[in-house]
């Protein structure tokens, strides 16, 4: 079994926030969405997902509501708060800075 790459540390919160920009989702939906959008490359461990959601809730970056799903089951749906949207912006810009920094280093190595 090929080992899937782990999530970069610190990126899980950002991915969750990003996923939620498209609308309210329950935990399972978030995991599924990340998996699908990454073409099965990124898998979110449930063991990390729920503690992360609790963390985001605590910081008021997301809020949660119990609603009915399409299949008529009760599920907890998470939505992005304005503070969460702002936080996503912050994290994205940090992430981009980091990626471009890594990119510069790598391209330098390749050219050498």
């Amino acid at each position, binding site marked *: 079994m090929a080992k899937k790459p782990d999530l970069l540390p610190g990126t899980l919160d950002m991915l969750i926030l990003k996923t939620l920009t498209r609308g309210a989702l*329950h*935990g*399972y939906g978030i*995991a*599924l969405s990340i998996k699908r959008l990454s073409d099965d490359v990124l898998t979110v*461990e*449930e*063991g990390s997902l*729920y*503690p992360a959601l*609790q*963390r985001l*809730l*605590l*910081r*008021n970056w997301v809020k949660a509501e*119990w609603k009915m799903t399409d299949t008529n*089951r*009760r*599920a*907890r749906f998470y939505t992005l708060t304005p503070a969460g949207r702002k936080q996503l912006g912050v994290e994205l810009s940090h992430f981009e800075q980091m990626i471009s920094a890594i990119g510069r280093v790598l391209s330098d190595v390749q050219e050498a």
Partner: protein
Amino acid sequence: MAMKFLNKLSLLFGRRRFHDELDEEIAFHRAQAEQEFVSEGMRPEEARYAAMRQFGNGTRIKERSREVIGFRGETVVQDVRYAIRQLWASPAFTIVILLTLALSIGANSAIFSVINGVLLKRLPYEQPERLVRIFLSSSSYPRFSLNPFDFRDYRARNQSFESMAAFTRGDVQLSGSGEPVRVNGFGITAGYFHVLGLRPELGREFDQAAEIPGNGLQVILSNRLWRTRFGADPNVIGRKITINMQPYTVVGVMPAGTVHPGNEYHSVAYGEDVDAWWPFSFEGNPNRRGSHYIEGIARLKSDVGLEQARTEMNAIMAQLGREHPGDGGWKVLVIPLYSEVVGASRPMLLMLLGAVVIVLLIACANAANLLLARASSRQREIAVRLAMGAPRARIMRQMMTESLLISFLGGGLGLALAFIGVKALVALLPADFPRAQDIHVSAPVLAFTILVTVATGILFGLAPAFQATRADPREGLQKGGRTTIGSGRQSRLRDALVVAEVSLACVLLIGAGLMLRSLLNQLHLDPGFQQEHVITASISLPHVNYGKREQVARFFDGLVTNLNRLPDVESAGAGSDLPWTGYDENSGFTIEGKKPPAGEEFHARYHMATPGYFSALGIPLVAGRFFTEADTKDTQQVVLINHAMANKYWPNENVIGKRMTFEDEPKEKDWLTIVGVVGDVKDQPNSPAAQPAFWWPELQSGWTSDMSVVIRARGTPSLLADALRNEVHRIDPALAVADVKLMDSIVNSSVSTPRFAFALVGLFAGLAVLLAGIGTYGVISYSVSQRTPELGIRMALGAVRSDVMGLVLSHAARLAVLGTALGVVAAFALSRLLKSLIFDVSPADPATFVSVAGIVILVALLAGYVPALRATATDPMNALRAE
């Protein structure tokens, strides 16, 4: 940040809901995943397992989520709550472990209170580390007082000291209003308080003019005397008060808490017991420097070290030796005041600290053992928790929380015990123990207790914690935590702890044994006098009314004669001093027809006595006769010497009739004839030997008006106290009768230090042996309970009770013998430290070592006997069925 905190806070009260919601969320997630797998074509059964596998450990998620929303301290609260439940569930275990810890931590706190007050707290003077005491020393007198003229030269010539002063004990009689009283007093030179860094609360201290006789009578009062006797009169300065029947002008009042730095000439005062200071004044021929009776104290300059000061003082003394023939042969001792005050009690205090630390270590080993046993029986619970995904660190923290909780409960109880213990300790302290008033359970003691408590908890908690988390959950679950315990590593650890306990208890018991032998030796010493039925008191005749020697002689002669007439008095007498009260006045003299060895002088303690003194004290006559009423001014001048003096200066000679003198150019009338030899009385009961000493008859050569009266009663001596006061006041109603004491109590207090040391070490040793016994009992009975099936099989196969008994006892014996052997070796190495504390006992005293080894092994076997008895009662069928 604040938001996060508030959210956490609101979640704190919605814990229940949070968990329910999380459960539901996880269930939903699983259901969704399961559906997904089914839609991918899995069979429903397979899908459920796949979903569960994918989801991983639900408990783990919950625990991690809880950590996210929880406060850091909250898990601790959980742990503590859990630990309390655990303790509550097994009260016997809890009581034993808490009592053990409370006693040992309490003992540590109590002893530390003493050490803190006596050794660690700074002396109550300004920059006390710069204060030193100054003594002289020669080959025959290792510590000697100073001569006033020498002192004046030291003070003028030295460069090492910022200031220097001298003092000498001289109690005074205060009269005026009410009954005349004797108060502790000291004569001090100018600047005495300045040296100590103390300032009078009112007025001033003496100036150098006061050192010259005839410059007016002045006195400085203690705060206590000022309050009790003078109503704290703010205008007391300048007032004339009657001291020794003369008008003294009050020039100062010292503040409360003025602590005397201690003295060794005459009886020792320490603490706030000094009530009056008078100016020490002196005059005379500065070339005659033979008499030594003042003590020096000085403050080092900030940039001068002890060694430098010592060198300078010795150079000054050598120079004085060249200038004055009588000043040769002396060395100067410069000793830090701190070691002077507490030096003598330090070894004993450190020994006591060692003893309580040993008790604490034993208690730790005991607690560790009890916890190990319990951790073993909780193996299953821990295995389940590990299997459910609890991190090992979490379980370890849980175990440590439990042991810290135990140690804190024990420490709290211990502190309560310490409060009581310190009171008892202070009450038990020998009367001359320094700084007893500084011993309290104070903030440093509290800090020490907390430190000890935490260290204890960690120490005894470590082993069980590690052992618990090393457990393999599979093994724990399979065996159900029943038979795993007998497994080698754990039982070896438990055995090792017991061996350690036994050996430590052995060390302590040997220490106690040595102290006991030393105490018995001191109690059985022949003091050289008979203390039973003897009452004593001191009387000081004021110079004003008793300035002439005849007046003093007439007073004591009359008093003793009257006392001897009382029906209850067997004999009565008076003398310059009493045995064992610290008296050490010396004088040089000339012996007819003998020359001292080069560079030395004939020296001996000098005393004075009335004829009845020796028979009242029960000092035996060795040769010749005692003084009689016939030895008066008009007859031959006589002297009594002790056995030690006869042996030293007239070895193998008949000393009766030999003559000695105190004059440099004696005329015929200056010679004193030795008429008798009396038995030796040592300075202190544990002094190596009696010092040479002689007595003048009071009627011929009275030189002091401060005398001790000694009465030997036919019945109960204390009943004679009033009779004595009556007789004194019949002659002179203005006199104070002070220090009324039974000779018994003087003798008692002279062994109070060894008794105190033995009582405490014995107490701790008893505690240690008890703990070691409990430890052994615990381990053996645990191993019996674990081996029940094995013993059952053995009995089923034909082993008889005695075999089983032997099996169990041999386990106990192995531990006991090994522990005792180690203990004896350790004690052998350590007991040398006791050398200064024990009297006339070898630190390797074989009797002590052998009997202690016997006792310890016996106790351990006894501790093993009870479980062994239980083992023999095993019913083989039950034992086998239990398996």
